């Protein structure tokens, strides 16, 4: 019940901000603008969904941005020149993301080192790998079929939006309806109790970091395809946006609580603010300040809401 209310709180904030923006900019509330907002938010959404699983178990994943770079470069190298079917670069991108996620999970569960430290390490390793693979240069001239993933549309709906909806549905069901979902909450809520009740805590942790890596792989493919080039320095700082989205959406960094719907609202809120500030022509310097204020403000409002409702 408390989760529900928390979710509504941020939803109200989101609607208020949308209303304000549509009052001051007449381009804001149009179909074409919303298509753009959601397409732009899709990459952050995939990362945020992945990190939501991780944060609910009480962990954190700082290597998201680097994984985006590694997987993007890997995919790009196989999508250029156009000799392999498009499935290969996509598959390679996903696998490289998954492997990095498994590596994170392996080190975290075997060594008992804090996830913050481990993923900080893999963040640097990943950036280095991306630079090594690409020799420090962007990989360009990708095949048309690969570029379709991020740039094409189906019945007028951009492909990234379709991916976003699909992944949201899968993640949401995984968290709400499956055994794994229940275990994830249990591990984050009280690790000792979860272990005592027979849950294999390490397996659950392995699973969340692997999912996070796999989704980062998908995000890397989307980004690479959208900008039609594999960039070794792409994705720097993406992890912060993803974590911000999850936290804005009500996922507690101490673990145990959070929903995919909340995270989705968080992602859209960040997307709407970015888009709105550009539409209103707010100077670059002020944009950063405004963004920070809105993030803090949204969470504060949300916690007030919770108290008054609870």
């Amino acid at each position, binding site marked *: 019940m408390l989760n529900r209310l928390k979710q509504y709180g941020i939803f109200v904030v989101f609607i208020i901000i949308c209303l304000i923006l549509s009052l001051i900019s007449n381009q804001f509330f149009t179909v*074409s603008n919303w298509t753009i907002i959601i397409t*732009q938010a899709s990459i952050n959404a995939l990362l945020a969904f992945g990190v939501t699983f991780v944060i609910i178990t009480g962990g954190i994943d700082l290597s998201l941005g680097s994984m985006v770079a590694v997987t993007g470069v890997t995919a790009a190298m196989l999508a250029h020149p156009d000799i392999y079917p498009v499935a290969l670069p996509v598959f390679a991108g996903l696998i490289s993301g998954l492997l990095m996620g498994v590596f994170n999970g392996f080190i975290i569960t075997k060594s008992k080192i804090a996830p913050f430290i481990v993923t900080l390490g893999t963040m640097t390793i990943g950036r280095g790998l991306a630079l090594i693979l690409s020799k*420090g240069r962007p990989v*360009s001239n990708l095949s048309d079929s690969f570029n379709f993933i991020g740039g094409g549309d189906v019945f007028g709906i951009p492909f990234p939006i379709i991916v976003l909806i699909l992944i949201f549905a899968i993640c949401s069901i995984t968290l709400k309806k499956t055994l794994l979902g229940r275990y994830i909450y249990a591990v984050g809520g009280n690790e000792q109790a979860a272990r005592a009740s027979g849950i294999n805590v390490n397996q659950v942790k392995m699973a969340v970091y692997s999912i996070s890596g796999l989704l980062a792989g998908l995000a890397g493919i989307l980004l690479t395809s959208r*900008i039609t080039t594999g*960039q070794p320095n792409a994705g720097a700082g993406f992890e912060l946006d993803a974590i911000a989205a999850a936290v804005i959406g009500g996922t507690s960094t101490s673990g145990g609580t959070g929903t995919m719907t909340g995270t989705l609202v968080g992602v859209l809120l960040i997307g709407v603010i970015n888009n709105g500030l550009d539409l209103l022509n707010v100077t*670059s310097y002020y944009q950063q300040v405004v963004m920070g204020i809105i993030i803090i403000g949204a969470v504060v409002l949300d916690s007030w809401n919770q108290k008054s409702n609870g």
Partner: protein
Amino acid sequence: MAIDFIIILTMKNLYSILFISIFFFFSCNKSNKAENGSDKKIKVGVTMLSMQNEFIVNISDEMSKKAEELDVELITVDAEHQPLKQIEQVESFIAQKVDVIIMNPCEVEASSPAVTKALTAKIPIINVNSATTIQPTAFVGSNDVESGRIAMNFIAEKLGGKGNIVMIHGFMGQAAQIQREQGAKEILKKYPNLKLISHQTGEWDRAKSMDLMQNWIQSYGTKINAVFAQNDEMGLGALKALQDAGLKDKVIVVSIDAIADALQAVKKGTLDATVFQNAKQQGAGAIETAVKIVKGQPYEKELMIPFQLVTKENIGKFLK
């Protein structure tokens, strides 16, 4: 050695063995290098701004090529955008007693102490690509203000001195961003009918700039006549957004650096122009200057490499 083996044998952990063997591999490598380095080559220490930046990597590659040609030994390190790290690297070059130091400064002010340190240690130091406030022994590079002027001049000519322009900045406050903006604004002043309707940062990044352009298309639509992006990555991002919106034919896009992707785009006629900053001449020029200084030959204190406008007409010259 014997003790090491015992340690390895007693450890059942595969990773420790792996780690130790890697360590041995590297230590062996190092000693090999030391043996080879005994002949008398000119030794040059190079610290680069960031090896994550394609243009800087190009300069570094050109330096290596020239060094090989002139039989110079290069020690190249990456300052990763951190002036403090760069100063420490120069200090270590001084300790290694290199013959010349080449520095690609991270920052105008903050990298200046490195120049002072090298000069006090009586080791000549050459700045490449960008400047420091303290005068080094020599400077090899280009004037970024000029590149902004060239790009904006092209837009002004194409639009006949009249129209609406948007500008995409690099990272705010970096030397290249400040100078390119300055150059562009100088030209804008001369054409009162050219209006800068909006300018935002794209942080040198293709994806960010693509998002920004999409948002601009939403708010200004067909009012935009030209885009000036302060580097090619951002220019190509804006170009992609315009192409997706079906507006490319109506909007002129110009950017700076002439990276490989941008040259291809100019050849295809999608990117209207880019400004060529000559990585080859900057890299090679720095090494040549270094050799001249060591051999006591006359050298230019300020070797300015000119920018060139690249359009569809002269693209052949720039494609290898």
